């Protein structure tokens, strides 16, 4: 399928209609459902992100978290589906400033993430990076980049390193549909295809670049086609359906490892504002409610588990309770941790020696 796509023969036409509403149509046949254990992992990870972000929003309201803070609520299925499809031993992950969810699904301890948000020494960047600049190299997570689109060439550079070392790894490089208009993205696309670098570009199309809907900012809204000029194939997937994201990612990964870059557009939605200070007046409450009621990634997965008889309501409630406890513990840890000592102002400017 992918080889055909590379020649420019795509199976699907661009979806018609208003692209500012969530694409509800399944873009892939769900294929085989992942095993029950996997589905439970998805649920746990998505719930962890949801509850974590809700708590972060709450702590922001209390003044414990400050500055810019971009929540991932609504988009959980994208990072979860993609990261679970990767080979976590060798593949690398990089994303934008909306990065808490990616870190959590990569396996970083929520305590370290929350402590970083609170600006504490126990945070993953010793409190010196904050919400937008978080890294966990032990888990192959390369940030956390605050400049819109910067992670695209940097992620392509991670893919360059995979190829240089012939280690078989790939880089999953996430960016939003707003970043998809940045010039550096296309410079990177060109070199990625020219050098056949193993990079999976995941465009998280949440419909709004800050307050500007996709249709008002982009001349051609089918973002998965953004690689056509460079002969990079692409496809799109319902980013509110974790199974679809996971299956589609698994489907394209062998191509990325062997042949080079691929663009996966995940059509998703963020429930909250662009950042904490966004009043979100550019869309109606009804629009948000519609997505929440009918397309919520967590509700959809819960329903799936119940329908198949793989979980009971009681089990799901128990999981939610466990996750809440983890998140509360993270919040407690963050608040109980000290701020960085004053000496930290002067460290980590240079590698010593």
């Amino acid at each position, binding site marked *: 399928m992918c080889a055909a796509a590379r020649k420019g023969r795509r199976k699907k036409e661009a979806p018609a209609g208003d692209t500012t509403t969530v694409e509800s149509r399944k873009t892939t046949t769900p294929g085989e459902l992942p095993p029950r254990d996997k589905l439970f992992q998805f649920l746990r990870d998505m719930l962890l992100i949801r509850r974590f972000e809700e708590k972060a929003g709450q702590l922001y309201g209390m003044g414990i978290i400050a500055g810019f803070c971009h929540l991932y609520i609504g988009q959980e299925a994208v990072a979860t589906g993609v990261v679970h499809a990767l080979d976590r031993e060798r593949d690398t992950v990089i994303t934008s400033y909306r990065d808490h969810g990616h870190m959590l699904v990569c396996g970083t301890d929520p305590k370290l993430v929350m402590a970083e948000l609170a600006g504490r020494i126990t945070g993953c960047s010793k409190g*010196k990076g904050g919400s937008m600049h978080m890294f966990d190299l032990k888990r192959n997570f390369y940030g956390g980049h605050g400049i819109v689109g910067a992670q695209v060439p940097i992620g392509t550079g991670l893919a360059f390193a995979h190829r240089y070392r012939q280690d078989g790894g790939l880089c999953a490089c996430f960016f939003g549909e707003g970043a998809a208009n940045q010039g550096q993205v296309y410079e990177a696309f060109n070199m990625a295809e020219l050098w056949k670098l193993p990079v999976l570009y995941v465009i998280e199309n949440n419909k709004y670049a800050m307050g500007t809907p996709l249709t008002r900012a982009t001349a051609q809204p089918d973002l998965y086609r953004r690689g056509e000029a460079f002969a990079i194939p692409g496809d799109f997937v319902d980013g509110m359906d974790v199974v679809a994201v996971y299956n589609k990612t698994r489907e394209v990964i062998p191509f990325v490892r062997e042949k080079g870059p691929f663009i996966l557009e995940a059509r998703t939605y963020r429930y909250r504002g662009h950042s904490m200070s966004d009043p979100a007046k550019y869309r109606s409450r009804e629009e948000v409610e519609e997505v929440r009621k009918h397309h919520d990634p967590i509700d959809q997965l819960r329903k799936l588990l119940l329908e198949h008889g793989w979980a009971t309501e009681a089990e799901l409630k128990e999981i939610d309770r466990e996750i809440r406890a983890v998140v509360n513990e993270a919040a407690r840890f963050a608040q109980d941790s000290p701020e960085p000592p004053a000496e930290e102002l*002067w460290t980590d400017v240079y590698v010593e*020696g």
Partner: protein
Amino acid sequence: MSITLTMPALSPTMSEGVIARWVKREGDRVEPGEVVAEIETDKATVEFEAVDEGVLGKILVPEGGSARVGEPIAILLEEGETLDQLEAEGAAAASPQTGAPAKAEAAPAPSAAATATATPAAAPPKAPAPAAPAVVRGGALPPEPEIPPGTPMVKMSVREALRDAMAEEMRRDPDVFLMGEEVGHYGGAYKVSQGLLEEFGERRVIDTPITEYGFTGIGVGAAFAGLKPIVEFMTWNFAMQAIDHIVNSAAKTLYMSGGQVRCPITFRGPNGAAARVAAQHSQEYSSWYAHVPGLKVVVPYTAADAKGLLKAAIRDPNPVVVLENEILYGQTFEVPQLEDWVVPIGRARIAREGRHVTLVSFGRWVGLALEAAEALAKEGIEAEVVDLRTLRPLDRATVVASLKKTNCMVVIEEGWPMCGVGAELAALAMEEAFDWLDAPVVRITGADVPMPYAANLERLALPRLEQVIAAARQVCYRD
């Protein structure tokens, strides 16, 4: 247990909010995610969503009323709980919004809200910041390398010295590679990388498209992954398209990651005016990069320093900016024939000793300073020439020691005067050698104009010998 809803901080600058409207009324059920109230902040009217479920028990701030961030605005009751019960227990026992840790309870308390706004009450007291270290160096400074007696010196152009440095480092470390425009098949736009493709192949000598922003970002990503890229800019003028990655991605990420993410990358290429290429192709960037913590900046003059400093740059675990000069590429100097000639970053060099005046310069203009010193010697002024070699970290000690000896200083640089390297050195003289100064520091800089094309005007826009000689006479009171 009941939960006290407090005035949330809804923007980084908000200190107070007004309840525009209570969407929920007392007695209403509240689900997580439901809008409880609309709050007018300093920026906009924002919906305030519930995080926890419960029943809105009591509204403490009416519509139109204001509260400071952290002050209680309502009480949320748990299922089955009543307000009377709560009052009987004492409102003080109500847990805050988080419903969790003891320390957090202090945050929304009215007394705390009266003083602090966005400061978490749980935060420990801040210690006073320590004084800034004079120089954030990045490791101890290695000594100047010794040239053992009997070491043969070979004549070599700066161009060859730079190529040899890259070749030696690429032989030494398989993680080192070169990327840039025309570095491979073309042999380098200025022939600096000549022969490297033949020796190391296309895997390690990589021609890029003309996309500085993109390939610099790719280089930075490769460095984050542990490779040691040498990114060549055809000239530094074009690196302005890439300066975002040099500053935001390469220089800052170590700090922003709390020391986790290293960026061992070398950015190099010719800097400053070549000849007759006008304003957009003749800019001097020393002070731009020297301004940035997290970068190291070297500006070699001699072939020996070009080779030794570039080797040091490639080995350095930090991002290093190497500012070369096209005019110097063809000039020859003596280079010690040693197996591994490395010049430490951060150490200036006395290029000529003297006792009457200190002439400080770097890069191509050290040549002008030496020429001026030669001319001044004929009239009895013994000038000491300091070649800075590294701009960041600056070797303040060598400059100050020379100044204390001569008591006056002239700085020669090609860059514009405003916020330039000369301005920095004048400040250094004030800060560390004020009592030794016999005359104000004089700066000879590039003219404060875009570089003109006409030959006569271009000459006038660059530092000139007669300016340096006049300045030296002036600070020595020999006019």
